[in-house]
């Protein structure tokens, strides 16, 4: 019978084994561990020893299977029946055999890292009982599946070390307090709702209370030797009263209602923490467990990697499960976790390969870059907003200063009926108003992260490829905005073919080196919050730099007088001109449009403030200003023309003047017609707006020089006048004296010639003498 029993014992095992491997591939760890036991056990004395051995093996298998809380129904029928058979067989021999093997699973795992452990397929979700220890004699009571409703009275059995009461109907833990030797207590699958009754079991190392109705962790104050605490599948809400368990190695709290990971400090030996199937959304305190190697968090509510951040601080963690959490569905979940927990060897029961790590590294870098980029972007966006706002603010200040003096003298504002019908509300083509009416009090220092060195950040954006993020950046919704120059009070940016300049400082962007292609792309320039007089000196540069410029837009630029508009003649070509009524008083003048058409005739403007320029407009403008131009061209003294004209025309005129100068006898009529000298454009060219520099070149020096010069001139003229008046006086005196002088002279002559012969002789003698 013995062989047969052996056969029966081993066969089911095999069966069980195959069943599991075939159908429950994921549960292989258990199988492995079982197998391992068989192989590692030393064969003791022949039959009995072997028998006992087998028995023990069965026990162990059983124990393992229960601690892993097999659901019998879920097991393959064959496998389970096999197990039952084992059970029966064992029952028969339980007491006869010296089943005093002490299952010393509880000694500190000196060889934890040994061969047995290492082939353990880690990451298994449920608590395992360590198995590597040899078994010695023990007092053991096994009352598995006896439908007990109360704890049995075992008062005589003080020596009991292992008490198995699993699969009963016990509701309360009683009658155990005298079992001071009790090392392992298994109350798996009962109906216990409170943990009271175990307070005195100070030797207890294994406490199995899985699948009960416990609400609260308590009564563990004296159980300081506890190595394994299994409370899975209860109704616990809170982790508490365990922080003194400094020898605890395994804590199983799977299948409870725990929402927070807390009160774990002090569990200095904890290597495995099972929190599967709870309601945890945030991982905390894990870093306070110095020995934690395995952490099971499957089936919780963790949604983002931020909630896992503290995993990164654990230096010992090597196995982790997170499947069944929302976060595990993220695209780069694995990589993100690996990046977070560097020492991880298994994730969701899969080995981490080098490839995984490499991918994680790459992903990490990408992520980092993206983050930096978006951060940079936000900063940039904020800066841009601030710059525009500050420019607007400064502009308000400047405007207030400008408007104050005339406001005292007379009201500068223009009556409503005065505003010309064609000027207002031509806002197409204008950038949206970034609400300059927003609260004004922005101190310059309030900008985020102002660059420490210098007030400017330059982003040479040519190197940056256009990417979708740019669209977010652009206020106007266009893509590909390049920021050229940015400080706390000015901004220059290129948006497609539009160059936008906010604040006077932005003009600096025109000065720097532009790529030919970039410069060629610019077709529209928008000025805002920049005084027109400051813009004028840059116009020649704009002419040279942006050959394809066809549209100029002036928002707030304080253009107030017609002559200022003449300065625009300096650009190369212009199809459209937009001068926004706000901040540009000139637009309120009825004649401004006509003047622009007349003065910028050579551009053949298509549109002014969005309104098309018709032939009638041109004729009307010609009528109003034609006379002026004609008179200016024909009647201005030519020497004066030389001063008024720009360089090229001046040379032309000079040449003509000299040419004519050499041809003597030029008729005044010919010369009169200045207009024909240099062509028709002359009349218009005369209306120039002097840029600031010429009028303001060192004013002090100028006045000193001019006053000196004036004094010099005065002195010179004084002398001149003196001499002239002296000459005049002399002339007048001579005039008075002349009649009498003349009479005297005549009389002298007559007297001399009275004696003709004598006179003749005297004359001859004089002649001969001279010879």
């Amino acid at each position: 019978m013995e062989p047969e029993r052996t056969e029966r014992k081993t066969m089911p095992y095999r069966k069980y084994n195959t069943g599991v491997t075939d159908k429950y591939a994921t549960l292989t760890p258990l199988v492995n561990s079982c197998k391992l036991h068989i192989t590692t056990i030393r064969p003791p004395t022949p039959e009995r020893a072997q028998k006992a051995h087998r028995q023990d093996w069965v026990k162990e298998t059983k124990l393992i299977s229960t601690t892993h809380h097999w659901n019998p129904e879920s097991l393959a029928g064959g496998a389970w029946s096999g197990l039952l058979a084992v059970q029966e067989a064992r029952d028969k021999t339980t007491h006869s055999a010296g089943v005093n093997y002490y299952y010393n699973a509880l000694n500190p795992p000196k060889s934890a890292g040994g061969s047995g452990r290492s082939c353990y397929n880690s990451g298994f979700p449920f608590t395992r009982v360590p198995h590597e220890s040899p078994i010695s004699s023990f007092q053991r009571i096994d009352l598995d599946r006896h439908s007990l409703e109360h704890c049995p009275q075992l008062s005589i059995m003080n020596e009991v070390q292992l008490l198995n009461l699993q699969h009963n109907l016990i509701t309360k833990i009683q009658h155990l307090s005298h079992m001071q030797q009790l090392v392992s207590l298994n109350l798996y699958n009962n109906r216990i709702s409170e943990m009271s009754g175990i307070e005195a079991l100070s030797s207890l190392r294994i406490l199995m209370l899985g699948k009960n109705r416990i609400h609260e962790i308590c009564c563990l104050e004296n159980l300081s030797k506890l190595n394994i605490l299994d409370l899975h599948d209860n109704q616990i809400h809170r982790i508490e009263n365990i922080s003194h368990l400094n020898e605890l190695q395994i804590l199983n709290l799977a299948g409870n209602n725990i929402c927070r990971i807390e009160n774990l400090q002090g569990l200095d030996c904890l290597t495995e923490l099972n929190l599967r199937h709870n309601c945890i959304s945030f991982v905390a305190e894990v870093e306070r467990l110095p020995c934690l190697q395995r952490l099971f968090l499957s089936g919780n509510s963790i949604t983002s990697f931020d909630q896992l951040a503290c995993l990164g601080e654990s230096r010992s963690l090597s196995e982790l499960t997170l499947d069944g959490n929302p976060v595990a569905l993220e695209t780069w979940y694995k990589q993100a976790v690996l990046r977070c927990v560097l020492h991880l060897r298994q994730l969701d029961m899969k080995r981490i390969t080098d490839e995984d790590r490499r991918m994680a590294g790459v992903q990490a870098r990408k992520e980092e870059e993206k983050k930096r980029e978006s951060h940079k972007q936000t900063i940039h966006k904020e800066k841009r907003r601030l710059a525009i706002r500050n420019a607007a603010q400064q502009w308000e200040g400047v405007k207030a200063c400008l408007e104050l003096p005339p406001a005292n003298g007379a009201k500068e504002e223009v009556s409503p009926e005065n505003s010309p019908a064609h000027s207002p509300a031509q806002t197409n083509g204008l950038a949206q108003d970034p609400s300059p009416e927003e609260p004004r009090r922005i101190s310059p220092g309030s900008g985020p992260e102002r660059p420490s060195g210098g007030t400017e950040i330059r982003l040479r954006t040519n190197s940056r490829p256009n990417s979708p993020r740019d669209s977010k950046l652009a206020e106007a919704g266009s893509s590909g905005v390049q920021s050229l120059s940015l400080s706390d009070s000015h901004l220059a940016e290129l948006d497609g073919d539009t160059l936008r300049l906010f604040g006077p400082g932005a003009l600096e962007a025109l000065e720097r080196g532009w790529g030919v292609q970039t410069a060629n792309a610019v077709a529209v320039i928008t000025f805002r919050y920049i005084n027109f007089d400051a813009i004028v000196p840059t116009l020649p540069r704009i002419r040279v730099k942006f050959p394809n410029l066809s549209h100029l837009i002036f928002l707030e630029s304080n253009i107030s007088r017609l002559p200022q508009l003449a300065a625009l003649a300096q650009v190369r070509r212009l199809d459209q001109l937009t001068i926004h009524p706000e901040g540009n008083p000139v637009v309120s003048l009825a004649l401004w449009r006509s003047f622009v058409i007349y003065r910028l005739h050579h551009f053949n403007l298509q549109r002014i403030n969005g309104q098309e320029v018709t032939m009638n407009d041109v004729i009307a403008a010609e009528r109003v200003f034609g006379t002026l131009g004609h008179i200016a061209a024909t009647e201005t003294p030519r020497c004066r023309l030389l001063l008024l004209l720009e360089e090229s025309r001046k040379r032309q005129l000079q040449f003509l003047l000299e040419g004519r100068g050499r041809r003597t006898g030029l008729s005044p009529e010919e010369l009169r017609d200045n207009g024909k000298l240099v062509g028709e454009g002359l009349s218009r060219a005369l209306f120039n707006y002097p840029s600031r520099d010429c009028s303001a070149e060192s004013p002090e020096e100028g006045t000193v020089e001019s006053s000196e010069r004036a004094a010099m001139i005065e002195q010179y003229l004084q002398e001149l006048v003196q001499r002239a008046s002296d000459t005049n006086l002399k002339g007048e005196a001579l005039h008075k004296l002349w009649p009498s002088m003349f009479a005297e002279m005549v009389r002298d002559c007559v007297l001399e010639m009275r004696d003709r012969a004598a006179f003749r002789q005297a004359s001859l003698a004089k002649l001969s003498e001279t010879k």
Partner: protein
Amino acid sequence: MNRLSSSVPVDEYLADSSVLVYLSDAVTQLLEHKEEYTQFGVVRYFAEYFSSVKNSNHVLFREYSYIRATLHNRASFIRVFWRCYRQIGKSGDMLSMLEYRSLLQLLCPDFPVEVVQSAARIVLMDDAIDCLMSFPDFLYAFQLQFYYQEFLDSVLAIYQDLLAGKSPNTVIVPTSTSIELLHSVTAEENEKAGQQQDGVESSTLAECVEALCDRFKHCHPSRSCMKEVFNQTEKVCYFSFLMSLAKHETINETIGALPSKAELLIDQEMDQELDKL
């Protein structure tokens, strides 16, 4: 001037004829733009300069201080202004003070707004300075204001003293007025609204203006014309007086810059020129 009539001393002659002003300006210009004018020819430059002064086109695009330096310059400028913008009058457009200022600035870049404002006040009787004005109205008012600037300022001072109920004699001695002015300012402010409507007695103002003319060094409108204006009404206010002066044909003839109102919009010669273009 005839050099044989030695009755006029040199200095007086020079002062009267403003020759020194032009001489000095010519030399200043020459020195300032040495390069251009040397190339142009100094003699030629002087010839052209003085012929332009004679032809009244020397004021084009010159600075304000030069334009107002002599009466001849002022008259020349007024005439140039008329000739250049006659078309605006012809089209009948009404323009605001600021637009006239802008037009003036096209001819003289630094033309100050104050003169334009004063002219606008004459047209608009000191109120509603933002209103639109017709070209002829503005032109004549501008002529009066610009040509007799100094005289009008003095008349205004006298007028305000009269309004304040002060003896106009005090105006003659500046030192005594300064203190009284301080007193009168508040009173004037209070009474201004009521008094300005009816102004002052024409006869009183006429006497004062007569006295002013006696001691006034600068040019002033002929006394007979002013008398004529004063005789029209019993009471007169400053701006209505100025308006009457501005519309006075004789004064216009005296200045000699503008044609009579009837012929204001006609300029045969220029029209022909423009037709050619």
